[in-house]
């Protein structure tokens, strides 16, 4: 029970009323008899304090192939509603990790839980909530696109209409009744994405989803990922293409030689690794003196002169000061370019020597 002091809008009389959160109470003012309703709002949740549950939990996973350690004691967490980018060079162990997450491969070392349940023990139950797009998408070549999707729809108890809707959505309407064996690589990839989201799974695991797609296909899939995420779908994407991850992901895990070397937000990673954004000034009359002045500005990390261009590594808040100081020192600036800290820098730093 919550008590609330309210003020009558007409006579300004104060009344104390009682109710439960979410309840609507009819109130009449004891002084002027004005009637009204008061809505006890739901208890406000502190947005920061709300902890989203982990949807995917991988604990101490190791996988050996003939003595070769493909994944080495890897642990990671993916929270509900995240777009998690799983980044690593080719052969780093991305696909192996994903296959273990889906129960496609077995390991004696480590556990995988999805929605808090062990994938090996509750496989069939869990997989109802998971959509997967494998690294190499393949279908039954003798069957048409629709026959293929209908088969998967049956396995997931999804309505058949959804298959046709998805085929249209992914621009394959004219090829609905064509054998998948006659599809191009890009078309198969689109159909693969359609298969992954068939049955509206709340968790999506995509292994190199843009592989083999033309730019339009890449854009289509990227937009689809964002749209699905806005509808609450948790998405796990593996890729070796940095721009793909940077464009959509909220969290990033970087894997190298089977070891997870970092897991954080893109911003936190760049910050922790002290990778600073860059501002480049093109100055016609550049001098060593200007460089010295800029170098002394607070927040400036490094300055370099390349071809009449002054490259300054500094935090964004120091940029205006840099331009001002150069101008004050008599530098003739003809162009300014800024560059944000990129995942590429993080990636290169963390996977050095591989």
């Amino acid at each position: 029970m919550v008590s609330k002091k309210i003020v009558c809008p007409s006579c300004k009389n104060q009344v104390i009323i009682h109710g439960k959160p979410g309840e609507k109470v009819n109130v009449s003012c004891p002084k002027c008899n004005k009637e009204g309703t008061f809505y006890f709002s739901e208890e406000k949740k502190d947005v920061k304090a709300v902890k989203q549950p982990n949807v995917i939990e991988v604990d101490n996973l190791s996988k050996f192939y003939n003595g070769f350690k493909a994944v080495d004691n890897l642990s990671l967490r993916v929270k509900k509603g995240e777009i998690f980018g799983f980044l690593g060079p080719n052969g780093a162990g991305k696909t192996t990790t994903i296959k273990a997450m889906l129960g496609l491969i077995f390991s004696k070392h480590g556990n995988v839980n999805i929605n808090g349940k062990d994938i090996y023990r509750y496989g069939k139950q869990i997989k109802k909530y998971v959509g997967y797009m494998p690294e190499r998408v393949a279908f039954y070549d003798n069957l048409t696109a629709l026959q293929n999707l209908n088969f998967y729809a049956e396995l997931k108890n999804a309505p058949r209409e959804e298959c046709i809707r998805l085929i249209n959505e992914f621009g394959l309407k004219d090829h609905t009744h064509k054998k998948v064996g006659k599809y191009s690589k890009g078309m198969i990839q689109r159909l693969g994405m359609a298969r992954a989201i068939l049955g509206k799974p709340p968790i999506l695991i995509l292994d190199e989803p843009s592989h083999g797609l033309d730019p339009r296909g890449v854009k289509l899939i990227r937009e689809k990922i964002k749209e699905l995420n806005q509808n609450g779908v948790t998405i796990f994407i593996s890729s070796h293409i940095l721009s793909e991850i940077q464009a959509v992901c909220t969290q990033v895990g970087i894997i190298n030689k089977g070891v997870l070397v970092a897991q954080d937000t893109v911003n936190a990673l760049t910050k922790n690794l002290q990778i600073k954004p860059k501002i480049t000034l093109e100055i016609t009359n550049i001098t060593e003196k200007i460089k010295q002045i800029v170098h002394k500005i607070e927040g400036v990390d490094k300055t370099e002169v390349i071809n009449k261009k002054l490259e300054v590594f500094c935090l964004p808040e120091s940029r205006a000061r840099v331009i001002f100081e150069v101008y004050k020192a008599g530098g003739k600036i003809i162009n300014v370019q800024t560059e944000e800290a990129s995942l590429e820098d993080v990636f290169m730093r963390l996977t050095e020597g591989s």
Partner: protein
Amino acid sequence: METILSIAKKEVMDNIRSKWIIITTGIFISLAIISSLIGALIHESGGLEDLRTTVLIMMFFVQYIIPIIGLMLGYATIVGEKERETLSALISYPVTRLEIIIGKFLGLGLVLSTSIFIGFGIAGIIIGISVGFVDLGIYLTFIAFSILLGLVFLSISMAFSSIFKKRSTSMGMSIFTWSFFSFLWGIFLFGLIAINRINPASSEAGGYFLLNLFSPAQVFNALISLNIGGPETLVMPSMGMSVFANDFPDFYNNGVLLSILFIWIFIPLILSYFAFRCKDI
């Protein structure tokens, strides 16, 4: 159960679309008609021979051809899907590996049975129209035994498909299995008999008859000889020697023979499941 049926249905559709079912049915029709014509040639009656004679001639072809078709249908079903990468998507769906094995066996078994039934059935109707349907029951029994023989080899090839990591290994093992049961085992038995100078018609040959039953194709032969051919049927259990059906020992009866075929269906299927259950895809 629904999942199993969906998988079975997909296998049937896949084989219809790939025209497999049509090709095998065509093979079975020609086999029956050719056998009938051969029968007519032997009896010099001209035209198509009656169903009973046709069946006995067909038996010689069927014991070689049905195993090939059963093996071909099954050898790639798991390993082929693994190599073509359709298996990973399938397993990522809410499906257990047991359901995949059962569904595939049911689907492929249905493809095999249907093509045998339709193929031999159409031929039977053609022969029946020209010479009369006197031995229809015999013909249906023959079809049923042929289907059982096919299922045995389908099951064996599915086990290879689950056990081996490469499609080519599974194919190699299937070819070896076919040659083993079609003639190697017979040559081996014949060698045993020749070395020990045993008269196959004597009671000393009991052990030989028992070993003979290891081959599902020979079990099939014995079933046909017992149920269709009658005691005077000349059977050739192995290369270069012949036995009359009335020389069969007592344990050559329908109960024992059919049980052997069923064991040959179930054991490989169980093996197939256990190999597939812990396989990395």
